[in-house]
């Protein structure tokens, strides 16, 4: 059984009658110990997807199952106990920590919220986890402003781990960090994954980071999954024209490697303006008449490799 399984998930924004689906029929699974990378450009619905799995944003349709149990319709109390198993790490290590709480208090709060009563036990966990994320015990009495960006991200990770979750949803966890700090955090996430047998849903716009860190990858475009494959296959044999264009656009740190014949894409449409056919139709270099009227479904093109394109 998959740790997390999401089926036909829909999330809509906007007033009644003029709403649109920011996440529109997304399905995938996360197995125990697996890292799923979710990539796509701004507005593709990847962050909405992450938050809706924790039900921080209400869903408009579909089901979310944790260990096979449908959590889509759970009430507040019942959902609390599920959130203990799924925690989130945010992008902004400056905005996501309460500036008026010491680090010790910051780490204590989630345990109190989840009813871990024994004070000694809580303190023991705090001391354990701060060490695991590579910060000294003296950090516990200090406040967020005393830390650098990379250290704050370590604190954010410690807070997410303090409830001993099985799944971490990481929304752009290294995007705000400098290159030299980014590698420290990625190494830390790798170590923690092994130590606590964690699974990650790793959301990022940075394809190089996802390529390095994900086992399987989901490529999203305007609320839809356009392609999904394991990391090796996706980079070796991308099938969807959007995936190909996206991979070709990533600048590689090696002079002279730029492909000047890379497909030129127009500007992205808004999800609200989606029409009947393929959402990528207007930017697609391979578009045919059929693509304007008939929306392609995600179908298997190879074992474990799916693409939503008529011509993939």
């Amino acid at each position, binding site marked *: 059984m998959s740790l997390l399984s999401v089926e036909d998930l829909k999330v809509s924004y906007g007033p009644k009658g003029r709403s649109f689906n920011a996440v529109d029929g997304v399905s995938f699974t996360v197995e125990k110990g697996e890292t799923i990378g979710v990539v796509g450009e701004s507005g593709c619905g990847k962050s909405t997807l992450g938050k809706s799995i924790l039900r921080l944003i209400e869903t408009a349709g579909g089901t979310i199952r944790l260990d096979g149990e449908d959590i889509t319709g759970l009430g507040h109390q019942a959902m609390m106990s599920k959130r203990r198993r799924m925690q989130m790490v945010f992008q902004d290590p400056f905005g996501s920590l309460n500036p008026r709480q010491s680090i010790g208090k910051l780490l204590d709060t989630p345990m109190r919220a989840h009813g871990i009563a024994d004070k000694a036990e809580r303190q023991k966990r705090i001391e354990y986890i701060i060490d695991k994320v590579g910060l000294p015990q003296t950090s516990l009495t200090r406040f967020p402003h005393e830390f650098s960006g990379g250290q704050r991200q370590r604190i954010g990770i410690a807070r997410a781990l303090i409830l001993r979750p099985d799944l971490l949803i990481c929304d752009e966890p290294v995007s705000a960090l400098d290159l030299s700090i980014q590698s420290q955090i990625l190494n830390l996430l790798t170590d923690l994954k092994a130590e606590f047998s964690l699974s990650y849903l790793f959301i990022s716009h940075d394809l190089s980071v996802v390529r390095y860190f994900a086992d399987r990858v989901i490529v999203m475009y305007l609320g839809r999954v356009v392609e999904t494959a394991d990391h090796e296959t996706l980079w070796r044999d991308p099938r969807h024209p959007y995936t190909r264009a*996206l991979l070709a656009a*990533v600048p590689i740190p*090696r002079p*002279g490697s730029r492909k000047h014949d890379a497909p030129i894409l127009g500007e992205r449409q808004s999800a609200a303006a989606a029409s009947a056919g393929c959402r990528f139709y207007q930017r697609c270099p391979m578009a045919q008449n059929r693509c304007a009227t008939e929306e392609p479904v995600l179908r298997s093109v190879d074992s474990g490799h799916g693409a939503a394109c008529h011509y993939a």
Partner: protein
Amino acid sequence: MKTVPVLEVLDLAIGFPAARAVHGVSFEIHKGEMMALVGESGCGKSLTAFAIMRLLPPGARIQNGQVIFDGTDLATISPRELRRIRGNGISLILQEPMTSLNPVLTVGVQVAEIIRQHQNLSRAAAKARVLELFDLVGITEPHKRYDQYPHNFSGGMRQRVMIAMAVACNPALLIADEPTTALDVTIQAQVMDLLDKLRRELSMAVLLITHDLGVVAQWADRVAVMYAGRIVETAPVQKFFSAPQHPYSMGLLNSSVSNGEGAWHYTNHRLSEIKGSVASAAQATGCSFAPRCRHVIAPCHGGQPKLEAVEKGWLATCCRAQNQEERIHEFA
């Protein structure tokens, strides 16, 4: 290179009341060249770029050094003279295309304003020039776009408007501060290709401020790496990526998640880290990178090393970088 550089920065130092932020930075840029200034947040790269046009934040002051552009020292000329150069001889594009435009004026009027400020043109002639510029930067349907407001433009299109504005008076130097950081990767490639095309067509020098080594490798000719307010290495891009001389440059390249071939995965390759953080530079007595350096030796604590030539056009501030034989052996 025998030609006179477009811009020559000599021993520039910038300070805030509490501390000095940029220490003796020197570099030059030649006609049609794209030079990248890279470094991590707080290294002084943006401050250096803004100091060229004397657009420093409140409190910051040029404490020493010269900025030679077109035979004059921009660090000392009068504000009136400086105004003639800003937007005309040197122009600037910023990271944030969402807030750099006035939301209540049409974009056409905003671009025309720059042209009329610096050139004696009629309204009609300025409009004709704007339409020409829109065409040059790849804004389709320029007539229709001229009368639209910034909110009608996507992020990539707004950055094209900013670029049109920046190249309106054929500047000799364009300073681009993280021009694609706020843009999606497919749009980034388009905007960088556009800047690349323009500098070739207009023989314009470009000073590109970025933290993205991928962008540097793909589009720049030369690179200067800054650390804690100093240039630690400057080199032609090819040489920098194949044989970086300064341990900080090496650290940056090694900690990257992509090795160029892109075959690295967490299951088979552990990323190398640069230990510690830049905060340690403030306490360093010698080389500011010494507290984080893996190759530190006794002379590193003796004093800040000077920027010295490795070979022609390639300089590094590392006391170990000069001895090529030893370096290759040690850092291999």
